[in-house]
């Protein structure tokens, strides 16, 4: 399960960041922020190659000693970043993919809300619920 889940706007500012409360929240902000370097690079690399069909799932962005950072980019260039504890070896690639898919679906629901302005931070209980379901339960 994830230790940090975040949604980043097209312009690379955070729309939503949630991390396990037991650990330093700021550290996850930095982890997510620095992972955007790799996301940007991957997106631009795809842009150059032929065909517009791009897989949304970017895979493992980069490993740190303690965490694994996975990325996912929607067609509107909204980024999802999920941070998983490195010690958690039970998570397979497929499970990460399905987490992203779930997140994307929920995000789409948020965007469909007529009271939500795209570009604003996400404040949705339903979205919170989905994210909580994917997070490592504290305690």
């Amino acid at each position, binding site marked *: 399960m994830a230790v940090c889940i975040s949604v980043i706007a097209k*312009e690379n500012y955070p729309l939503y960041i949630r991390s396990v409360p037991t650990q330093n929240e700021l550290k996850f902000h930095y982890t997510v922020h620095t992972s955007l370097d790799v996301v940007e690079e991957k997106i631009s690399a795809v842009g150059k190659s032929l065909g517009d069909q791009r897989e949304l799932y970017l895979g493992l962005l980069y490993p740190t000693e303690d965490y694994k950072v996975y990325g996912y980019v929607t067609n509107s260039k909204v980024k999802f970043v999920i941070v998983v504890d490195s010690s958690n070896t039970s998570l397979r690639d497929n499970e990460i993919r399905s987490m992203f898919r779930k997140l994307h679906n929920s995000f789409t629901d948020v965007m469909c809300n007529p009271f939500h302005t795209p570009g604003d931070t996400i404040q949705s209980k339903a979205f919170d619920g989905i994210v909580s379901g994917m997070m490592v339960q504290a305690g």
Partner: protein
Amino acid sequence: MMAGSQWELPPELCCRPMAFVALTGLDVVYNAVHRAIWDAFCVNRRADRVPISFKVLPGDHEYPKCRTKRTSYEWYIPKGILKTGWMHKHLNLVPALVVLFYELDWDDPTWKEKQSECATKVEIVRTSLQGRNTKVAVVLIQKKTPLPPGEDLVASERAATLCNACDLSGKSLFVLPHTDHLVGYIIRLENAFYEHSQTYYYTEIRRVKSHKEFLNKTTHQLLFVRHQFKIAFFSELKQDTQNALKYYRTAYSLVHELRAHETNMLEIKTMAGFINYKICRLCFQHNTPLDAIAQFRKHIDLCKKKIGSAELAFEHSAWMSKQFQSFGELFDEAIKLGLTAIQTQNPGFYYQQAACYSQDRKQLAQQLCQASLPSPEPVDTQSGGLDFYGQRAWRQGHQSIDPPDAEKEKTGILAQQMKERDVPHSELIIALLSNAVAQFKKYKCPRMKSHLMVQMGEEYYHAKDYTKSLKLLDYVMCDYRTERWWALLSAILTTALRCAYLMASVKDYIIYCMELLGRASTLKEEQKLRIEKNLLKVLKNEVPEAEPECDPSSVTAARSLWNDRMALAGSNELTIEVQDYIPFIQCKARFHSPSFHVDQPVQLKVFLRADCPHPVSFNKLSVSLSNQEYNQWCVVESAGEESMSLVPGKTQCYNFSFVAKTEDVGKKIEMTGVEVMLGSDSGRCVFLSWRGAGGDVASTHEALQASRSSRRWGRGVQARQEPDWDSLTLQPSTMVISRVPKVSVQLSHQPPALNNEMYCINLTVQSQEEGVAKDVKLTAGLKPGQDATLGQTTHVTLDGSKVCDDSAPALLPDLPLGDLHPGQKLEISVHVKCVSTGPRVFLFHVAYSIDTSVEGRQIVCKCHKDETVTIETVVPFEVSAKFVSTKFEQLDRLAVDIPFLLMTDILSTSPWPLLLASSSLQLLTMTSNTPQLQSQLQEVVLQTDESASECFCLRVPPMNNNNNNTVATGQYLISWRRKSSGVDSPLIQTTVTLSHVILETVPLYIHADLPSFGRVRESLSVRYHIENRTSLVQEVEMAVEPSDAFMFSGLKQVRLRILPGSEQQMLYNYYPLMAGYQTLPQLNISLPRCLTANTHSLRRFLPQRIFVKPQGRQLDEASIAAA
């Protein structure tokens, strides 16, 4: 070296092992030949030479003694894994080959003596190498160039005896002729040496391998590792890196099989680190970087948890940090040699992790090294004094699980902790971070770079280097600000604020306070309250409270710094450019409208809004404009004690208005800045200054979001009472435009204009002003900026009584029209002559000035009204002319001195009726046949598409020059005007140049006198005149052909002569027989002498037919009777 050097890898581990060859018998100081030989060996060694490290040693050099060979390991208990001196010994002390240089020529006279001296020297070397497998070789330095092998019998014989005497094999004796090709010989020599050294290391490997059978797994585990390491190292010396890698890998797995406990943990990790370093290094060297990375990951995973003694946990972090650092360095080195790294796998990550472990080390050291030691005997912990790598100085060689002496162990640990306290951790961390920054910069990771720079800044903060810390933090802050990561920005600002506080840097302190109070700050309310309180204190020139989590000793220092600052008089005015931050007071300014008429007051609004928890008061608000003269109108200052105040979350609006100067008409007024003054003169004045019309880093995005949401919700947002802050837009500039003119300008004219006419445009200017319009000026004519040729073909004048000439301009500028009283009307006629056809745009510009008052101020406004009109110019009529004969037959050439007709045709194409006043001909070569040429068109009026024709009878006078030439005819002049224009309006002369004609001369001119009609059965007489136009006597043959319609009398056929210039007349009486148009009897004329003129060409002058009337009815008897 820094104090962290305990963890540095020994240089003999990090170098590339090369075979060691000792050279003896060379006197490189005093013997030039020997010096040259030595230089050839070691100076400018390029990479393509064999890897040997040479050393010059004296002939009697003592090599390290070889320990007596162990025959049994049965009772042997090893004291450690690897001796600290071993690698050095084999790299630099124990040679693979000792070479003895000896000067001896084959034909040396004292051969015998020399040979035995050489043998003695060899023996000395052999003795000092007692027990080693080191090879010995002899090189004879000779002055003579050797003969090819086999030819010099003396040489081969003496070589054999020398070998015998020295107990050398033939392969170990070399000859070095000291001739021109020294380097070539040397290279051949060293290749031979290299082979010898290979053999030596091979035997060494065999020797070490042979120990294996004596070892047992229980007591000799350490030796398994040691032997594998040694084999690998010898393989490296042998340059067999593939096998070296294989043995190192074995050694690595063996080292982890060792029983690990607290006492030997450090030794195991140290050796594991060494072997890992060797493996990674060789993998990079073999260009298999992935193997290196995999090995390193395995190494880290295996060792991560092997912390060892808890009291010395910082040592583990230091060791881990070193592992990452040295791998990073290996990686970086490989990149320099051509390896390509990628964004997600570059040395930066390893440096970063090294820094991370160094930070752990620092933290652990801070926790563990609290106790101060009353150090009676400082234990020597220098690794230099160790026998084995990774052992403790106070219990060397000890291999059992428990420390031998608990007391000694305690002091040892304490001493280590003491030593750790002096380590400049921050320095180490910063160095590693800056290495990582350099790497991430290279591999396009700007955010990672920023993150590391933040860490560096924080480390500088911990190291109390606040200036450097602020410099770094300030540098990266803007990246986080523009990317809108507020939580990170707030965290950085908090650190920066601490730095600014501890340095007592007033300006920085205020800036960071301002931003931490602003809307981008994610601080909690109570934090903001505390910061706001501090900010207010600074504004009152008081010392602020210390920031939390500051080092207490630094706080005391800071407080005295602040007191010094406060005591310092002056410099209590600060201007802060807030645009590039997200300050707690937001400002947006706008002009009411993008343009103002000069007689309106220019209005602008400044919106202010505070985001801090408490209301904030300020004392002055001013706007600066591009024209500074207006600035005085855009200031608001607090009156007396009462200061202006901003309520958090509420938008406060300040209105300013001023009257623009008339000189600024047509110019732009821009806001260049807005300033808000916080504090007061009694304390500290801080000017927050925005460039342009305000806004800050975040406001553009907010405005965008606001527009997105308002687009969705339409007018709902607009209808609210208070303007929505985010959707307020900036209007930083406005135009001053001239006052709206209150005059009417009307044009009346009859388009289109006719080519060349004086086209009249009537202009009516009427004032609707309430005051007197002064200095009314008219500019009339062709609007500038059209096709340049139009300027030359258009002429404008006010005088319509005569046709203007080409000197009249295309535009009449600034015609003074005097003053115009309210309601007064002015009429002006402008006449335009257009020489070419096509459309033209005419401009009528009426300018005047008027006194008016704006907000009680009298100003003189200049107003102008422009009227433009497009007028088409067309051709009034088309003129055609043609030449015909007197018989109205088209002529293509004119006969000289024979009358003909010129017919002109004027076709009106004008939409307006034209009055043709008169027309005339100006003839050049021809003359009129009639005495008075009179115009037949006088006062004719032509409507559209009507045409008027004229006919002139002309004759070309005889000329004496050659015939068949083309001549100009002349011009046809028409004077005309519009029918509608007044009687006194000028007539326009239109000149049509007539076409050229071809002239011809005829030799004989015949014309006939003939009545206009005949009557049946009534005789009519026809007289033919035949003129000889030549200067010769002409013989003419004439015959009249019979005709059914006529009877005739006269000469039917005649031949006559006509003298030059004279005329002959022939008279015939024709008697018509039939009525109607009848062909006259044909007259055939021929000139036998002049063949060019035939009957046909002569006949054209003669009438062909005549009308014959029927016989008049006479009432005679016969006809009655017939009836």
